[in-house]
């Protein structure tokens, strides 16, 4: 009899634990080939590092390459939802791909955790209870750059960005917090690599500072040509042209440039220290902000898994919303539209030994939410 009771208790305990340990299947769609692969690889590596550290066998991650093409991202999302039966999707880097995938997967009842893209359409009217952005709303870093320019006393900025939606958001974000005159406002071609004409205009404009948003290779080209042009104005930009993957290719041309980011490797908290060390040990390079975003996204997911079953969508959503995990950024919380409310820092590009990297100067905006939260009826 005693044996039976024990067996029953054991069986009960086992069934209880198996309810809690309902496995979670995650589909990661990210860019692993082509020109923008560095970003996707960093997000993936950061995410998988957190998964490995947790050692949670109930978490299964499937990684696929979207080649930075919206049609492929949509195909992969369909495959992951319909045949792989994933519970959570994540990984997309580019806003145009996110716009193609996120609304449809959240409408099908899946969760989407964004480790990077934060288009304004998904933060305002298009917000969704199952969509969480762990990185930032697209405008945030540009707003911080505008705030920095205002605080520094720049009165006549020359601003430029590529002619596509995120480029327009960037200049809008900058102008939202900067209150001086504009010496010039330019939209360049997306993918442009020669900025001689723009540099000549900057030189002739009488500006006292330059703000630019040119992600990836465009930024490398711009900075090298800027340094070679002999123009000697202070430059401000978002972290996307100054991340760890790009800086080594820019070299001395980036030294001293101020840029804005929600993360840096010298943010002083134990989680971040451990993350930077573990990432270097695992992959042999310094992490970028993208890697920190992937790492935070995985830890957010793990924290929710510890609290709720993913099949119970309401409980799981509430657990995600609590954001009860140790972020590499220190304090981390979600606003009403499931986008971060966080500090954004001004960093300066420095050289540590042979390696170019960033150090934090000050916070440009503290507890900063986004301009679209009011449009979100959630």
């Amino acid at each position, binding site marked *: 009899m005693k044996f039976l009771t024990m067996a029953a208790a054991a069986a009960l305990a086992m069934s209880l634990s198996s309810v809690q340990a309902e496995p979670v299947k995650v589909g990661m769609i990210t860019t*692993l*080939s*082509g*020109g923008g*692969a*560095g970003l996707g*690889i960093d997000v993936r590596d950061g995410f998988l590092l957190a998964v490995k550290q947790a050692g949670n066998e109930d978490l299964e991650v499937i990684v696929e390459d979207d080649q930075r093409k919206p049609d492929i991202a949509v195909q992969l999302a369909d495959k992951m939802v319909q045949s792989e039966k994933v519970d959570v999707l994540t990984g997309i880097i580019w806003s145009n791909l996110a716009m193609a995938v996120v609304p449809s997967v959240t409408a099908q009842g899946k969760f989407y955790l964004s480790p990077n893209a934060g288009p304004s359409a998904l933060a305002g009217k298009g917000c969704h209870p199952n969509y969480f952005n762990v990185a930032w709303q697209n405008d945030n870093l540009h707003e911080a750059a505008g705030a920095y320019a205002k605080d520094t006393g720049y009165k006549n900025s020359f601003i430029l960005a590529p*002619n596509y939606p995120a480029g*327009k958001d960037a200049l809008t974000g900058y102008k939202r917090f900067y209150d001086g005159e504009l010496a010039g*406002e*330019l*939209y*360049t*071609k997306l*993918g442009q*690599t*020669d900025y*001689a*004409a723009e540099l*000549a*205009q900057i*030189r*002739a404009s009488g500006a006292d500072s330059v703000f630019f948003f040119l992600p*990836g*290779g*465009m930024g*490398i*080209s711009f900075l*090298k*040509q800027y340094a*070679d*042009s*002999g123009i000697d104005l202070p430059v401000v930009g978002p972290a996307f042209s100054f991340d760890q*993957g*790009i800086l*080594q*290719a*820019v*070299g*001395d*041309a980036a030294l001293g440039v101020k840029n804005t980011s929600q993360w840096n490797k010298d943010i002083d908290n134990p989680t971040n220290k451990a993350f930077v060390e573990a990432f270097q040990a695992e992959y042999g390079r310094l992490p970028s902000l993208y890697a920190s975003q992937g790492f935070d996204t995985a830890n957010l997911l793990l924290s929710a898994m510890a609290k709720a079953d993913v099949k119970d969508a309401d409980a799981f959503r509430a657990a995600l919303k609590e954001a009860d995990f140790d972020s590499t950024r220190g304090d981390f919380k979600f606003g009403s539209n499931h986008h971060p409310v966080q500090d954004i820092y001004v960093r300066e590009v420095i050289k540590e030994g042979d390696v170019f990297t960033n150090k934090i100067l000050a916070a440009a905006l503290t507890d900063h939410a986004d301009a679209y939260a009011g449009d979100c009826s959630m």
Partner: protein
Amino acid sequence: MSFLLLIEQVLNGLQFGIMLFLMAAGLTLIFGVMGLINLAHGSLYMIGAFCAAAVAAATGSFLLGLVAALAGAAAAGALVELVVIRRLYDKDHLDQVLATFALILIFSEGTRWIFGSFPLFLNVPDFLSGPITLPGGIEYPLYRLTLIVIGLLVALGLYMLISRTRLGIQIRAGENDREMIAALGIDIAKLYTIVFALGAALAGLAGALVGAIQSVQVGMGEPVLILAFVVIVIGGIGSIKGALVGAILVGLTDTLGGIFLPEALKLFLDPSTATSVGSSLASMAIYILMAAVLILRPAGLFGARA
């Protein structure tokens, strides 16, 4: 807009055009002599830039990097010609496009496999960095001036090669009648390999020279490839002279269009609309130019065949 700024922008357009010429010259030679559409020409440009970056990083010498770019791209070109392209001469253009598109994918992922996904560092050498002051007080980067000079020297060298040497005679003969020059006892297979390697070396040189002021990364060749095709269509397919004139036209149109269209629209639109409409129109300008040239001269400016 001052006169000095205008001169500076014309120089910028000229420099951009001359770099396009290096790409387009190889493309048009290969098409003219072999009748082959080579989409992988942009990959050879990328290979040149990566060779230069790797060797410059290892030796610290930009000039050795340039030599490596020429050698690396020429070797890659010759290898590709021997292994793949040779089988495509008597196929139609669709087969050529498919095969050379596959080569783009192979080269891109192969480069990523060897060098990783992050852009490489290649900088302007110290003795060419910084601006110099031109007569009239224009400050202009010395490196860009050097690019113009190198490009013009290459154009001159190509002209001499084609018009004054035995190889040039064979190339011209090959364009006109390949059966006949084969019948005259010239090893046409060897000639094709040489022409292909020459075109590849020019693309590699352009990649290395431009890589120093842009970013050396996987996929850098494809945007340039599209412009190079526009250039050879404008100039007339197969014509080196056409490639030079077409490249400079495209360079000037692109650069000056980007500046003057928004300025011109500001006369009757509000500034932010003018900027945005003007930028969009400017990115179409070279294609409008191409359409206009094709309407007036369907074979291109210097094209022999209609």
